[in-house]
């Protein structure tokens, strides 16, 4: 007996789950991003309150001063769900692995001038702690934010920040003995050039508003740090002076920053556009955190780029302000 599959009209009863259809309609199948995101977080009938924070519900939009009619408006333009995220990162890891093999097999690190190697270690290694701070702050958003559209990408972003911290650690171990990590931590804790940045990161840890944390960490802190350090210092200065190897081994950071800015920008722009009140809040946060970050980066810019440090930082800051303007902000 032959079975003609096409003759069997197997009509679906529906295209997706009803809590997803509420957002995207039911006239065609929903995407995996949509099915993973919309309506995933419970909104009502909680059985308990947090023992550690009883004035809030288990998921509570009022933790933020930002007000949105529906937090699911904060969609991720990359449409990452866990699977596409991890597969993308696996490809990037493959590329980084190839770079490490290339650098190691040609002994490129040892061909770098010692002075440059030392400078790189001095500037980069303490930043592994800033990246850990990025992990902590994005865990905070994933934990206390409202709505899966906002919190799920933050959870993945937290892992990415940890990935950066681990790539920097790996780079340090490629450049020098393990004691270089201890030296970097010592500088982070005690060297004068790092204290303003360290205090800023620590102060970000006591912010309780998940959206303010988003603005502080993902827009202001990373938005200035990456162009200065991974852009100007590593990709320009270090690469041009015999340290191409370092540039290769930092490629992930540059790529990742550019990719995730699409998400960061979309979230900020959408939330600010919803109301004058949101816009005012986000403006204020952006201005105060970015000004503070700018000031904290002055000694680091000088350490990294000498005479050109301050002017380069000013360029970075000007570009940051232009970026904010495109998002509807007036930083």
């Amino acid at each position: 007996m032959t079975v003609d599959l096409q003759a069997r009209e197997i009509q679906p009863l529906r295209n997706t789950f009803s809590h997803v259809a509420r957002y995207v309609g039911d006239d065609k199948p929903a995407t995996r991003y949509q099915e993973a995101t919309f309506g995933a977080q419970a909104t009502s009938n909680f059985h308990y309150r947090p023992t550690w924070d009883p004035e809030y519900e288990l998921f509570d939009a009022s933790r933020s001063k930002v007000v949105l009619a529906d937090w699911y408006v904060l969609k991720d333009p990359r449409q990452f769900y866990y699977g596409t995220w991890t597969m993308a990162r696996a490809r990037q890891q493959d590329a980084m692995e190839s770079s490490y093999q290339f650098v190691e097999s040609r002994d490129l690190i040892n061909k770098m001038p010692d002075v440059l190697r030392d400078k790189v270690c001095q500037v980069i290694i303490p930043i592994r702690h800033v990246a850990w701070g990025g992990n902590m702050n994005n865990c905070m958003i994933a934990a206390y934010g409202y709505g899966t559209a906002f919190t799920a990408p933050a959870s993945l972003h937290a892992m990415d920040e940890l990935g950066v911290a681990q790539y920097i650690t790996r780079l340090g171990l490629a450049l020098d003995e393990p004691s270089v990590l201890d030296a970097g931590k010592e500088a982070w804790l005690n060297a004068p050039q790092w204290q303003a940045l360290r205090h800023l990161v620590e102060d970000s840890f006591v912010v309780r508003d998940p959206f303010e944390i988003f603005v502080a960490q993902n827009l202001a802190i990373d938005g200035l740090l990456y162009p200065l350090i991974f852009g100007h210092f590593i990709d320009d200065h270090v690469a041009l002076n015999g340290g191409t190897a370092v540039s290769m081994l930092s490629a992930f950071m540059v790529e990742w920053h550019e990719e995730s800015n699409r998400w960061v920008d979309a979230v900020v722009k959408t939330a600010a556009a919803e109301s004058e009140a949101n816009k005012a809040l986000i403006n204020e946060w952006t201005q105060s955190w970015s000004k503070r970050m700018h000031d904290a980066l002055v000694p680091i810019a000088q350490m990294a780029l000498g005479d050109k440090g301050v002017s380069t930082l000013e360029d970075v800051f000007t570009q940051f302000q232009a970026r904010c303007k495109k998002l509807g902000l007036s930083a």
Partner: protein
Amino acid sequence: MDTTVKHPAMNRTQRMLALTRDLAWPVRQPDEVFPARSQEGIRIHDWSALRQPLQPTLEQYWKLQGDKDKRLYAITDAFAQNNGQLGLSDARYANAIKLLLQAFTPIEYSAHRGYARVARQLGLTDAAFQSADHLRHHQVEIHATSHFNKYFNGMHSFTEWFDNHWMLSVAKSYADDLLSAGPFEFLVAMAVGYTPVIGNTLHVSFMSAAADNGDMSTSSAGLTAQSDKVRHQVAGQTLVAFLVQQDPANLPLVQAWIDKWFWRSVRLSSLVAVMQDYMLPYRSQSWQQVWALYVSQPLAKVFETWEPLGLSLPHHWQEAQEQQAHVSHQTWLRLCRYSAGLPLHVWAPNAAALNWLSEKYPGTFDALFRPHMMGLGHQVAHGHRPQETTAPVLCGTCQLPVPGMDGAHALAQAQSLKGRCFCSLPCQQLFNLDADKHSAQAASSAQRHGWSLPAKQAVDSGLFDGSQDEHNFKEWNGGAQHE
């Protein structure tokens, strides 16, 4: 895959420390940054003593998880493209998927958010990995079952049912209790409750049996989720020992959480029990067997190794063992009595099923349950099946129906007792240990008592025989009969 981050001067432990704990530093304002660290009374003197077996670097993690998901989604896609649901042993099987989505998929989401909190509250990077893993599990379950949702009823509004239906109150109560817990209680709960009791049964034995029943999609999702859960199991057990070893003050706290969460997980597992014994048309191991092989034997061994640390078997271990011969049958009978208002189908087990149950539960099944099952078969055949029209009274702690408290009169009684009715002595004892906290549930129970399946969802409930699911499955298979 090459192992990353090798350095001749560092062994694995030193490397992992450099990549995780060493990233943190003593902050200026620890009490403001980590207020939850000390709220539960747990004392930690040296975090670096916490071992991290199976902990991957992020590079390894991305590589491993990328491999798993590439493979998994290829299977999910193929299953959908080939209309894999046609190859199910029987459309009755779909009801197991319904219960999975309604009860357990939302708990994965809660675990995801809960671990994110722990990561932040304790500054613990391992928890960040676990948070990402549970997000993965939540999503792969939705993606694997998405295709079934297009063709079967009882799945489309699983979040609505989780929040409102009394049948799922046990699951939401569990999830919300997890989320309401402090970070150390949460970690212990997952270590001795969810991961060993639910993970090892639902994601190991049930998912393997799902493959047997033609469901490569959900089976693959479950088994791959389990590959993460092994890491969690190991991390959890390491953590429990660590907590107890850090300070003598921690021992009674950890033991109390072990007692509570083992019991809560046992109650929740009644839903897995009914899936294993009643919803797999192609039968494999019984729930009782699965319980012994994958829960009680391994856990008993773990507790044996913990005895020198001062920990004992969970307080209600013995009651838990005794339940496993009865729980699936009791649960099935209850679902049948209430089926008119449930978002899934029920049926009378056929002769082959009854014989299998007799064989797997020698003595008890025939003495206690076979007569009821045969009565059920008789009622179905003659179209007279008494159905409850009001919701049952829910246990004030675990939120399972209290045996014998059915009907409007019982509801009124329960209201006058302000929800202080319990399914068992252990649940009553748990309630009394934290009465203020658990009394908050009375409002949720009342809400569920007052909620019923909307009229347009009638097609999701009732008997399998004569249902749209049954009709469609026959049609799709060209009218062919399945056993």
